[in-house]
């Protein structure tokens, strides 16, 4: 498989007939961490270079909307979650999914057991921490499905915009907070609360999972054959990086740490994150599963009174790139 990918990429490189490597800038959704290990591994291990690509990876952060960077021309391709990408599409930012390295969702709601929450039926009256900045959509559509109002009205939940840490749970300012299986959940554990004191609800188990980290480009750019070829090579090399990272979590974590500009990440945390992330990427060869896409769209459309998107999106994904990359 790996060989096949490499040779496909090499062939593509010859096909394009370019001597100078093509520049590709990738905008991440969040800071440098093992969540994006595949791309860093592909960069460090020279997979991109073999595919005749000169890749620059731009980390994101709490106030960076990858879509805006893409629109502003600051990047060629971005990592984003499908809910926010589709919402942006409806708001006039024509982004298209070209690949989906994450098969499953890692999003959860983590609650303190002492609050008495045992199931979603206990949510009304409680305070729940939610991420915003484009990450609130899965939550809103779940609550919509449960028919629990989020606007603070009777019988509903009080929603907090939580910062990107787990303090609200530790300080008991919220009964539940949003966590990722590979990141914040472990921050709670590390803070000294044992798993027995916690109740978690995985979006995947609740049947409201939406697609997470996928690769998106601007629709206009897909009319350019050279760009499509470049993206095919990029996706192929990235998936090679992902598969390598899945098999070698320790090495992948080390590579991520080297690229971490914040200096706040630790080896222990990154190895654990890589191991958890591997579970989410395991089922994907890079190609978007149309059934997953349809489930995401359906979940977003069904968001009660205030759905995340109002109409069925058209042309929001293309299988062309992954077809070219994987064959």
């Amino acid at each position: 498989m790996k060989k096949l990918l490499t040779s496909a990429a090499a062939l593509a490189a010859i096909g394009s007939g370019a001597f100078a490597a093509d520049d590709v800038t990738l905008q991440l959704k969040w800071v440098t961490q093992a969540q994006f290990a595949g791309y860093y591994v592909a960069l460090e291990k020279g997979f991109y270079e073999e595919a005749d690509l000169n890749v620059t990876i731009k980390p994101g952060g709490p106030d960076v909307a990858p879509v805006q960077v893409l629109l502003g021309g600051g990047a060629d391709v971005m990592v984003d979650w499908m809910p926010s990408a589709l919402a942006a599409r409806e708001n006039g930012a024509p982004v298209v999914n070209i690949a989906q390295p994450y098969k499953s969702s890692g999003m959860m709601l983590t609650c303190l057991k002492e609050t008495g929450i045992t199931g979603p039926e206990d949510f009304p009256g409680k305070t729940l921490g939610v991420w915003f900045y484009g990450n609130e959509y899965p939550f809103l559509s779940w609550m919509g499905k449960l028919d629990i109002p989020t606007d603070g009205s009777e019988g509903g939940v009080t929603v907090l915009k939580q910062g990107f840490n787990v303090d609200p749970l530790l300080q008991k300012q919220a009964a539940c907070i949003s966590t990722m299986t590979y990141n914040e959940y472990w921050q709670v554990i590390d803070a000294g609360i044992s798993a027995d004191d916690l109740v978690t609800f995985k979006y995947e188990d609740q049947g409201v999972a939406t697609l997470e980290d996928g690769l998106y480009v601007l629709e206009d750019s897909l009319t350019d054959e050279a760009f499509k070829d470049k993206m095919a090579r990029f996706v192929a090399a990235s998936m090679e990086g992902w598969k390598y990272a899945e098999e070698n979590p320790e090495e992948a974590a080390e590579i991520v740490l080297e690229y971490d500009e914040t200096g706040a990440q630790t080896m222990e945390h990154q190895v654990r994150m890589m191991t958890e992330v591997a579970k989410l990427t395991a089922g994907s060869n890079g190609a978007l599963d149309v059934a997953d896409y349809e489930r995401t769209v359906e979940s977003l459309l069904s968001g009660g009174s205030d759905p995340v998107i109002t109409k069925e999106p058209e042309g929001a994904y293309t299988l062309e790139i992954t077809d070219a990359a994987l064959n």
Partner: protein
Amino acid sequence: MRPDTTFEKIVWPVGFGLLVLVLWEVIVRVFGVSPAILPPPSAIAAAMAGSLPILWEDWVQTVVKGALNGLWMGTLAALILALIIDRFDFLKRGLMPVANFFAALPIVGLAPIMVMWFGFDWHSKAAVVAIMVFFPMLVNILGGLAAVDPMHRDLMRTYGATHIQTLHKLRGPAALPFLFNGLKIATSLALIGAIVAEYFGSPIRGMGFRITTEMGRLATDMVWAEIVVSAVTGTALYGLVAGIEKRVTFWHPSQRG
């Protein structure tokens, strides 16, 4: 040089502002700038008109509950402390350098800590604002209380005036221009503090919350709508302080001419 007429004082700046708006609208339309990057002023106006209830709710949360509460708490605390340490020379000499130092610090960095301490609602925002305005107010009030002509003070002493009387009749009024100067700085600090603190966690309303959330949704017209509201609020607060100052300190040389 002929003096400026009121007419000129209004027409020039307003005309300049309108010119900028027109240029902005034209540039955005001619070059086809994506609305997600820079919306034209007309779209911003439409967004404002279309979401008045939201803007009002955010304004109450951030300005009334966060900024103004913090402003009066910080100012009152500074006033009380200033009056206390004014009585003790030892304290004054010890605290002035420390307060001066703190006044120059980026206290807004305390915002995430205040959110951790006081929770997500307006209390943490008011706390950030209170600390931010406290030190500039303290320094200004203390400076004002010291800004009395020694001759005047001696005169009060020969009258046999008590500390309270001197404070009330002489030093208080003399400190007023300084107090207002501090307030002018404090009002703009208060808005900054209240908005930044919302970046670190908030309920689902407030200007800082709306700015970050709408930015993530690419609804930049809404972001600009909040910016307009914050700008108008900041200017109005400043104008209010300047207006009160004019009425209260009409006797001071800085208000003459």
